[in-house]
């Protein structure tokens, strides 16, 4: 039997029961499109997280209190719970480790911020004048916190662009905010500058933030001398490892700790953080893909179910085909072709649907998505493979039918 004839037979067979064929294909369409959408969401998340980490600065070393051996970055939101770093540590590092170009301390907290009727709960970052250098922050209008503000413990605030719109209205520009007085945790602050947008979403949003002198944070908000984080910019990427070692040994001696495994702080560089976040988001992608894969499996079982029903229904037809000279391999091939055509057409439709949904999710700003060519290719290959795997058993069953019994089948 020729391939063109097999395809024609397949078309006739599948179109003779359109509702059943359509529903079976739908199972595959849903499976394939959800795999594509889920993987695109996962990869989009990976991409945006990486971009936002890279935007936080280059040649960056981060020192956080507490011994966070694994995934220090994700635990950073709890920074300050362990209290071991002080401004003396920070200053000692800045003066004694030669490869440190800039140092900036951070004291973070979340407080209620009010301007007239509007209020928002945002991240308050107590820091120093070197923050823009270390963290790649640019000022849109006005100035950043100066060393004078720090020494005078003056209540000056630099707003992130999200905070500007939250407090001054969606149409507000940076100039509307400058010079205004806002209340952070019921204390009045003067807005001296507005930062440029850096991007990032959700908990990674670096624009939903207010910068104030760290001395103010310590005195009025945390009420103690500790820091949540010390950030260092190292002069050259080649010096990152040696700088990390120097900082670690200096802090160990300052804290009188002999055993490095008992350190009450963690020094991480950006590459470490990037790789740990990447591994998290890759796990996320795999997880999402696996969940979607289950629906694909269910779709495959649907194909098998339909093919088994078809074989039973068409027993006499199979008997007749054998009586007029069809070989077992002709029958196998015919039913296998039916299954593969079902899954493959479902796969193609699924790819289109998946791409459209991914695009829609991105367009309506729900999540960042990224459809990779590889995931499309994989989805199509998987759909064809499902046809072969789930179609094989019914096809073999059809081919094995005894023509005499098949012709007598009622």
């Amino acid at each position, binding site marked *: *039997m*020729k391939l063109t*004839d097999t395809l024609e037979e397949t078309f006739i067979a599948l179109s003779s029961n359109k509702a059943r064929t359509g529903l079976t294909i739908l199972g595959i369409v849903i499976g394939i499109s959800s795999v594509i959408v889920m993987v695109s969401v996962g990869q989009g998340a990976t991409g945006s997280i990486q971009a936002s980490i890279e935007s936080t600065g280059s040649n960056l070393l981060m020192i956080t209190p507490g011994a966070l051996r694994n995934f220090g970055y994700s635990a950073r939101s709890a920074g300050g719970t362990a209290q071991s770093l002080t401004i003396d540590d920070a200053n000692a590092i800045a003066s004694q480790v030669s490869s440190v170009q800039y140092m900036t301390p951070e004291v973070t907290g979340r407080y209620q911020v009010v301007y007239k009727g509007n209020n928002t709960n945002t991240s308050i970052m107590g820091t120093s004048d070197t923050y823009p250098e270390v963290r790649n922050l640019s000022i849109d209008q006005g100035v950043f916190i100066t060393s004078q503000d720090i020494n005078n413990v003056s209540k000056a605030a630099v707003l992130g662009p999200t905070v500007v719109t939250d407090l001054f209205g969606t149409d507000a520009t940076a100039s509307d905010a400058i010079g205004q007085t806002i209340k952070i945790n019921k204390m009045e602050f003067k807005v001296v500058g507005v930062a440029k947008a850096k991007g990032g979403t959700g908990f990674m949003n670096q624009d939903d933030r207010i910068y104030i002198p760290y001395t103010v944070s310590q005195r009025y908000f945390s009420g103690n001398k500790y820091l949540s984080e010390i950030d260092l910019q190292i002069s050259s990427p080649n010096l990152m490892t040696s700088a990390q070692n120097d900082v670690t040994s200096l802090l160990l001696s300052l804290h009188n700790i002999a055993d490095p495994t008992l350190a009450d702080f963690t020094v991480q560089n950006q590459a470490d953080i990037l790789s740990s976040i990447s591994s998290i988001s890759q796990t996320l992608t795999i997880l999402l893909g696996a969940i979607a894969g289950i629906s694909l499996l269910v779709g495959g079982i649907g194909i098998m179910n339909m093919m088994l029903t078809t074989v039973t229904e068409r027993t006499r037809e199979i008997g007749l*085909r054998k009586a*007029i*000279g069809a070989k*077992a391999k002709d029958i196998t091939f015919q039913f296998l072709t039916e299954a593969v055509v079902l899954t493959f057409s479902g796969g193609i439709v699924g790819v289109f649907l998946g791409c459209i949904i991914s695009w829609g999710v991105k367009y309506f700003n729900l999540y960042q998505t990224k459809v990779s060519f590889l995931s499309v290719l994989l989805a199509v290959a998987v759909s064809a493979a499902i046809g072969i795997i789930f179609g094989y058993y019914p096809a073999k069953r059809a081919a094995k039918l005894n023509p005499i019994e098949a*012709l007598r089948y009622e």
Partner: protein
Amino acid sequence: MIEVNNIVKIYQTGSIGFQALSGVSFKIKDGEFVAIMGPSGSGKSTLMHILGALDTPTTGTYFLDGRDVSTLNEDELADIRKNKIGFVFQAFNLLPRTTALRNVSLPLVYAEIAPEERGKKAKESLRAAGLDEEYFDHLSNQLSGGQIQRVAIARALVNNPALILADEPTGNLDSKTGEIVLQTFEKLNKERGRTIILITHEHDVAKHADRIISLKDGLVISDTKDHKKR
């Protein structure tokens, strides 16, 4: 030329064997119209399956056009069925919701005849089976019983087989339509020289043939050619 020598067929179910044929021998020359008769259980269905290359005998030989069919494997049997045998079944066995023409073309698909030739051959065959031209494109479920059996006969003819095997071809038809179908077989035999074997349990049907082989309990009990003269 068909030559059956001492065919025995035993169906084995577990340890119990059932002997359906106990040594059947006969010869059928090309162009003969033979009826194989017998009550149910006589072994005529088993014999038909063997003659039709759907099954092989336990012992004995079956030569069809000089080739021993009794020792072939499944794929070789399929080739014999494809090239040498045309079946007409009691239950017709047309493909549902498919045109008469396409039903008749089906054996040509497996014989890998070029698509352009299939239509021509199928039409020729339908004409020979006596179906009016206007029904060629009707779906199988829009045809009457007699028309359906003509399509089935056309399908059996289309590959120009050495042998047409008809298994109770009138069993599902009323007597008038059955008569027309039997006349079609007679015509194919007389006018086109087709070798036809008709399997039936009814004497009225069998008498249309030139020769009647009667089976009982797996054995040939009579083989007559002169029933028409009586």
